[in-house]
Structure formats: structure tokens, C-alpha cells
């Protein structure tokens, strides 16, 4: 099993890799923080990964992303691409416009480019799974993180269309929508006493969903019902909620 992970230092991605490592997977990992990525590579090796190679980080240049995908595929067939990078700044109601652009680039544009770069070759090979980490924040956006949520909602719609495109091709598209998860990105929420899912839980759900080829999964599953309700709240009520 050969697995490509973009944003491999994210807590959810790392825990997915741990589960795959035990099965003896081969990894190609990309992340911005190379020191952290090297620690993860050593960890996965001890856990049983057959091989781990580290890719030069490039998240924004479309030509470089395409070149990365082509080079990786030239090195052997790829079974899974997990696209897991993201960034959620605090206080998005007061975000400067340059940072707003960054949020959109990192959480929406870049993941789509990676998925696109692999979608064509996967369709040709008639195999492979494209897994994207979205967010419940993409279902309903709110004042605290509406730019991040807006970007994640793009992933939701994009994944739906990609799934449509690849229907019947043998390629699977899996969108995972985690609720707030206990990661370095959410330390402030834990301090406020919120109960968060652990990255281990979310990773288990993600790996299971990829194995079964489910199209959309919430992690934990309870969020499906919470978001179903929230999505149908009338605007006057939604806008008065302290969320």
C-alpha cells in the first residue's frame, strides 16, 4: 500500500499514518515543518512502515504541485492520497485581508490543486482513493471562523463534484468532516472547557472510511446530526446563537 500524505504533520494525518504504518505501508509525506516531519518519519518506521520518503514542501505553485504528483506516480502506483493540510487563525472577524487570502489559499485552493493533480492519473489508472480532510465548519460558517469555514465549504462542494466526475471510474473520493479535535490548532477551545474528540478517534474514522470508500463521513459521527439541525436553523435564530 503506497500512501501520499499532504500536510503530514497535522495531528489527524499523523495518527492516520500510524494506523497505516502497522500494516507496513509505503509513505510519501509532505509538510512545511521538516524537523517535525523527520521525527514523524522515524516514528512511522519503528511502527512498521516499509518505507518513508519526504517530499519537498510546495503548497501553492500549481506547476510544482503537478510535477510532484507526476514524479510520485512515476515512482510507483499510489493507493491513497490524503490531503490534510489546513490553518485556522483565531479572531477571523478582525483578520487583515492578507491573512484572509492565506486562509483561503491554504484551506481551499491548495487542497483542490493537489486533488486535481492526482485525479487525472488516478482516473486513467482506474484506481486510487483521494481523501480530503474538510470540516464541520464547512457545513455552517459562523463569526469566529467564517473565512476558514468558507474555505472548507468549498472543499465540500468540490469533493462532491469530483466524486461525480469520477463515478464509475474506480477512483474513490472520501471527504472527512471532523468536529473540533484536540490538536495544537484548538488549544484555546480546550482551555475554555470544551470536550474535543481526540486525533486518534478522528484518524480511526478516517482510515475506516477510506478502507470502505465512504463518500462523506463526520468524525465523530454525532456531528452529522448536530450539523443537520444547525443547517436548518432559521437565520434569526442562528445569528443569535452564541457560537
Amino acid at each position, binding site marked *: 500500500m503506497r500512501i501520499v500524505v499532504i500536510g503530514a504533520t497535522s495531528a489527524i494525518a499523523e495518527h492516520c499514518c500510524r494506523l497505516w504504518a*502497522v500494516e507496513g505501508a509505503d509513505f510519501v509525506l509532505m509538510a*512545511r515543518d521538516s*524537523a*517535525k516531519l523527520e*521525527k*514523524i518519519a*522515524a*516514528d512511522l518506521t*519503528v*511502527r*512498521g512502515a516499509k518505507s518513508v520518503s519526504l517530499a519537498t514542501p510546495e503548497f*501553492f505553485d500549481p506547476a510544482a504541485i503537478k510535477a510532484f504528483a507526476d514524479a510520485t506516480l512515476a515512482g510507483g502506483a499510489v493507493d491513497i492520497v490524503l490531503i490534510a493540510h489546513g*490553518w485556522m*487563525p*483565531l479572531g477571523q472577524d478582525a483578520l487583515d485581508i492578507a*491573512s484572509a487570502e*492565506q486562509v483561503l*489559499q*491554504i484551506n481551499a485552493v491548495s487542497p483542490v490543486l493537489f486533488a486535481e493533480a492526482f485525479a487525472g492519473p488516478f482516473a486513467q489508472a482506474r484506481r486510487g482513493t483521494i481523501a480530503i480532510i474538510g470540516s464541520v465548519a464547512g457545513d455552517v460558517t459562523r463569526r469566529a471562523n467564517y473565512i476558514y469555514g468558507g474555505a472548507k465549504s468549498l472543499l465540500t462542494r468540490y469533493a462532491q463534484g469530483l466524486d461525480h466526475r469520477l463515478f464509475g471510474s474506480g477512483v474513490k473520493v472520501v471527504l472527512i468532516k471532523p468536529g473540533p479535535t484536540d490538536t*495544537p490548532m484548538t*488549544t*484555546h477551545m*480546550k*482551555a475554555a*472547557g470544551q470536550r474535543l474528540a481526540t486525533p486518534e478517534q478522528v484518524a480511526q474514522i478516517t482510515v475506516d472510511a477510506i478502507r470502505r470508500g465512504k463518500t462523506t463521513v463526520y468524525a465523530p459521527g454525532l456531528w452529522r446530526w448536530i450539523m443537520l439541525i444547525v443547517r436548518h436553523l432559521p437565520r434569526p435564530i442562528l445569528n443569535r446563537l452564541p457560537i
Partner: protein
Amino acid sequence: MQRPAPVVYSGANMRPVSSWGRLGAAPHDVVELTDRHAVAPALAGHHPGIAHGLGRSYGDACLNAGGVLWRTVGLDRFIAFDPDTGRLTCEAGVVLRDISRLMIPRAWNLPVVPGTQWVTVGGAIANDVHGKNHHVVGTFGEHVRRLRLVRTTGETIDCGPDQNPELFAATVGGLGLTGLITEAELQLRPIGGPWLEAETVAFSGLDDFFALSDESEAAWEHTVSWIDCTSGSSVRGLFMRARPSSGGTGRPWHERSRRIPITPPVSMVNGLSLRPFNALYYCLSRRRTGVRVVHYEPFLFPLDSILDWNRLYGPKGFFQYQSVVPRAGALGATRDMLDAIARSGEGSFLAVLKTFGARPPAGLLSFPREGATLALDFRNSRAASGLFARLDEIVQAAGGRLYPAKDARMPRALYEATYPNLAAFAAHRDPGMSSGLSRRLMGS
């Protein structure tokens, strides 16, 4: 395109933290450590504080009310493993369960595991934990070849039996007070598989218990006894012993853990439940005596199948009292303790009695010593604190001592009288490390 620097969260992360005994949940300034190479700056910014792993010590060894806790569970990466020698290097927040589950299929395992697998490597070293096989392999610290210590002064020091051995001896069993352990190199032990040949023998009376212990030490790797703590010195109990299975495999084992979902408003362990439960458990288990082949997890970690079992003691929490007394006076001291406990009407469903082997301690402040150790839980009540004073007297008179990892209440005088290496230890302390326990028992 340059990505903006991520927001760094530090300080002001006050949140309630309790230890396994749930005696309180004071707010702590919790600093999450996730990068073993960035620990020194995290320590420099905030102290005094103490490292906190999974919070499985029962009292205040892992707490620092109102102050800083450096949480180590994010330091959970393996670093290297040599399948030829069995040397495993990993970060200090790695959980023992993860090591066992990864390594047993490769025919290696941790030589020493305590009664729960939900313990970090750092916590296992800092408390120099022991297992049911103490008489064969000693304590966890005896199998640490090297550890890396980061001090609040900014120093990073490697130590082990052959490198800075004095600091190493202070750190093993040193309750986190010599610095923060970021990684450790462990010597694993070759094993044949996950199966144990286990035998349960019912006994009555302490003479019987000690005879069984002596008889079992040579041929059985694991020994432990459950006792009915309501039965006094004419104690009835179940002696459990196990050794690696020679070829035989048992029924396939699947983890089926349940969680105590809520904290009941009062302790479920009380005068009404104690006697019937203990009697029922004894009678049911006695029918299952004899030799069986069992998986190591249910044998070594019976309580791990009930998650959050500490909630049973209600909102006020509980104490564990674990003592060890030298073998010479063990019969009399254990008899007196069991009588005092039976008279008090307090106690728990799980009372454990076992013998330790005669091995030199790995650390200056290590708890295990040659003798008999008795461990019981007590709900937090006034009757229990009266009983503890009586038990303290018996333990001290017999030349024994209490286990700091389990303790939340021992008087400082008792600690000082029973841990003779305290003065030698003090020289190795990191002045920026402080816990509830260190202030209570060492004054700072």
C-alpha cells in the same frame, strides 16, 4: 508565498486537572509539549512546575495546584528500534500499551509493566514502577539504558547506568523533580508470544499466602494475590501466578472495555457494598481455580477493561494506601494492618497483596524493596484518615514505607524516616520543578 507565523498559545491555559484519585480538580496552567526538541524553551518560560503524563498517579505527585503542568502526552513518538538487540528509543509520552501492542507481535516486550497499561514511559521512570514479576526482573528503571533530561536551567543532560549515574539514580523514581524526561532508551525482553500459563489458587490465612509466595517465586514469573479486605488477619484470597506459556495458546482475546459513564453522587464502594461484593467475588472466582492459558492483557491489566473505574468512588474521590514491609516482620505487620482495616469497615473491592524480590533499588527514592506489599483503595472519608494513622504506625514500626505514586496524605515525618536517601537526592533536584507532593513531603 510566506505563511504567517502560527499563534503560540502559552500561559493562561488554566484548566482543572485531577489525578487518578480524583480528590480535587484544582486549576493548572497546562502547557502542552509536542516537540521534544522544543522542551527547553517551554520550561524556561514557566516555572516552577511538574511534568504530567496520563495523570495515573493517585495523589499529588503529578499535580501542582494553581501552577504549571507540562503535559507530555504529545511527546508520543518512537525514535528508533533495533530488532536484533531489542533496544527501543522513544519519547517520554509514549504509552506502555502502545509499546506492548507494537512489540509483542515482533517477539519483544517491556520487561516491567504496572497494573495498568495507561501509563507513559516518563511516568513509569519517574515513579520507578514495578509489576507482578518484580522478583524476576525488578523495576522499570532497571531496564532504562539512557534517558534525556531537560532542566529548567536550560541544560539537556543524557544519563544512564554508565553516564551521569548519580543523576540517573536520582531521576529513576525521582518523581519528576530532577527535570523533565523527554526521551528514553529501553531494553526490551524477548518473548514467545502473548500467552501466559496462569494458575489461581485459593488460600486462607497469611501463613498460606507466604508459603505460596515462597513456593512460586522460582517457577512463576508473575505472582499477585487478590484478598478479601473484610476478612481480617484470617484473610481469604486468591493467589494468582503466571508464566510464559510453553507453546499452548488460549482462546482468542478481544478487548471489550466498558466505561463507567458518570460519577455517582456518592461512593459505590461503601459499608453496604463492600462485604457482599468481596464475598461474591471470592466465591465466583474460587470456582475458576486451576491452570489455564490466558492472554497477557486480561491477566496483567484486569482493571483496564473498566475505563474510568475511579469514578466509582463518587465526587469526593479516594485514596490508595500502598505499603511495603520487610519480609522478616511481614507476617505480623500484614496481620495487624488487615485487622485494623477489617475493624474500620472501610476498604475496597480490589485489595492486592504480593511479595517483592530482594533486589537493589534502581533509584535513590524507589519504593520497592524486599518484602510484602499491600495495596488497597479507600473512599475519601473521615474513618479512612483515622485508619491511615494507625496503618502508618504499623508500617513504620516494621521498617516499611509507602508508595509516593499512590500517596496524597502521608505525613512528612514518615516520609523522611522511611526514605533514607532523601538528602542525597536533594542535591540533584531541579529547583524549577515542584509538585504538590514535593512541597508536602520535601518542603519545596
